[in-house]
């Protein structure tokens, strides 16, 4: 018997697929999300802002029918009128909140309810549980955002009487994808905290703290750093350029900046670059003329890639921490 003990049955590889049972987890978690009171409140909130801002945008467009018959649908998302900000402004704030609400207690909740050891003693790997939880949150977020997105298109068609053009449709579709991954970053971040902190309240506060930091303080701090590292002493163009470039690079560490630039690039087709533009670069350009669809997408491609990369990276961090954690609370 003992001789048999020394011979492992298989090689060094783990048996079976790490994703076995993942869809069961996704099904259960999505059902939890979609029926929870927390999500209901956030959905109502986002519904309210969507209808509110679209209504205001439609009013605004009726009053200013003189010009810009182009891109009516895009202006539904971007038109603001005091005191309401545009819908994309609301999204920049609401999406992180929804994302954090979806995942801040997803792992530590299993610990505090003492369900983790029971679930992991079923024939699944930890991989399936964590991935399932993440995808369930991402799917829920996508579902909510897509529903709102369709609602706005519907309201737009009713309000303006025209259907979106092919180009407009592609632009707002890519905008939806950018929004989902902007949420993905915050989902993954809250998931990291949910794995690190055993108290759900601590995880929620930590996530909110990071969100506040990037929403309010980061731009100020980036400005201070840029002025300190690339001071403008002689007032030369090169110095001003260097400072502005550093400022922009620093600001882009924040997912909020990436999202803001991405949406502007997509929904305002006249956007041809972010940051400082020299007069020489505009040589031959017709100001205010829209960029073709392909060029706009090329412009925001790095932003979308960075948002996806940040999501994957943060999830990987949560994954590594979770794999190393002792099951026993």
């Amino acid at each position, binding site marked *: 018997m003992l001789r048999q003990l020394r011979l492992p049955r298989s090689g060094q590889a783990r048996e079976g697929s790490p994703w076995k049972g993942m869809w069961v987890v996704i099904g259960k978690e999505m059902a939890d999300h979609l029926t929870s009171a927390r999500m209901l409140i956030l959905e109502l909130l986002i519904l309210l802002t969507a209808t509110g801002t679209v209504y205001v945008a439609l009013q605004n467009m009726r009053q200013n029918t003189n010009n810009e018959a182009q891109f009516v649908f895009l202006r539904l998302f971007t038109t603001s009128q005091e005191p309401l900000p545009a819908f994309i402004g609301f999204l920049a704030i609401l999406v992180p909140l929804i994302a954090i609400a979806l995942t801040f207690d997803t792992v530590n909740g299993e610990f505090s309810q003492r369900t983790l050891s029971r679930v992991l003693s079923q024939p699944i790997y930890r991989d399936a549980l964590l991935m399932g939880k993440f995808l369930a949150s991402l799917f829920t977020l996508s579902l909510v955002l897509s529903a709102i997105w369709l609602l706005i298109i519907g309201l737009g068609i009713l309000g303006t009487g025209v259907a979106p053009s092919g180009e407009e449709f592609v632009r707002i579709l890519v905008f939806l994808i950018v929004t989902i991954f902007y949420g993905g970053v915050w989902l993954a971040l809250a998931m990291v905290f949910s794995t690190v902190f055993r108290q759900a309240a601590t995880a929620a506060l930590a996530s909110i703290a990071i969100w506040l930091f990037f929403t309010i303080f980061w731009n100020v701090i980036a400005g201070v750093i840029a002025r300190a590292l690339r001071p403008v002493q002689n007032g030369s163009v090169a110095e001003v350029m260097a400072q502005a470039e550093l400022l922009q690079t620093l600001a882009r560490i924040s997912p909020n900046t990436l999202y803001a630039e991405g949406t502007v690039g997509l929904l305002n087709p006249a956007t041809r670059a972010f940051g400082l533009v020299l007069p020489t670069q505009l040589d031959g350009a017709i100001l205010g003329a829209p960029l073709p669809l392909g060029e706009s997408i090329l412009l925001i491609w790095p932003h979308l890639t960075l948002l996806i990369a940040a999501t994957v990276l943060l999830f990987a961090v949560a994954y590594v921490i979770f794999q190393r954690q*002792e*099951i026993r609370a």
Partner: protein
Amino acid sequence: MGEPVIETKDLTKRYGQFEAVRSLNLTVEKGEVFGLLGPNGSGKTTTILMLLGLTEPTEGQVRVLGYDPAREPLSVKRRVGYLPDQIGFYDGLTARENLFYIARLNGLSRKEANQRIEESVERMGLTPVLDKKVKTFSRGMRQRLGLAELLLKQPQMIIMDEPTLGLDPEAARMFLQIIRDLKDTGITILLSSHLLHQVQEICDRVALFHRGKVVLTGAVGELARRVLGGAYHIRVCADGTSKELEQALRTLPGVVNLRYTSVGEIVLETTNDMRAEVASTVVTAGGKLKSLDIEQPNLDEIYAHYFEEVEHVAAA
């Protein structure tokens, strides 16, 4: 000897400097009820987690039902049911939803899952509360729901961590009866407990843990003979006990020790059941015998006695 379902060889788990389990050698055979007993923090739960592949051993080997839990955890977990201590359920879901989730994680089809849920819940007497939310359940009900979950997996072996902890005496008794019934169906059961006296009657064999090491393994009676010398305690209550009577009892062959209780009863430690001899000795010596009881050897006593000896040896 049946076939072994659990085998460990020099199994060790270290957390930094701390050795939670020290070179554990254990064999559990098919169909037996095996108890891992010892105080809290003596390594029982860590051992269980290693058997299930939920934590990796630092050194040594484990085989559960012929599989290596570290490399083939799915095969092990498919065949072994685990009831953790302080069992938790999703409070916001009903009992049925909780069980359904587990059934689906085990790869059962919807139809099969529903059928097995009905059966196992029926067996645990929880049918009336099947569609109630788990947050309304008492500790005893949760424990039974945990067992229902094990049953729907139809495991070859069940591992229970502190199954009677926090149950009132009536619920604990019921629970032990359920374990006996399960044993009768041929399932191997491994359970851990620090309430030695409570589980000693249902365990075929036990392993006593002390600071991460198994110090004694065997059937309870066998351990008693080994550690206590005399395995039987006879309690004599008689009027007119005298020095002569005491002397007569002491010289009976098979009597290992004699002591008085605080109320003046005599307790004899003997190697076999000597109630008849003791009774006739008392009567012959002129004492008036009022009662004569035999106490089964007690695991708590074995445990305490063993460590007294160990510490004596260490001090000497």
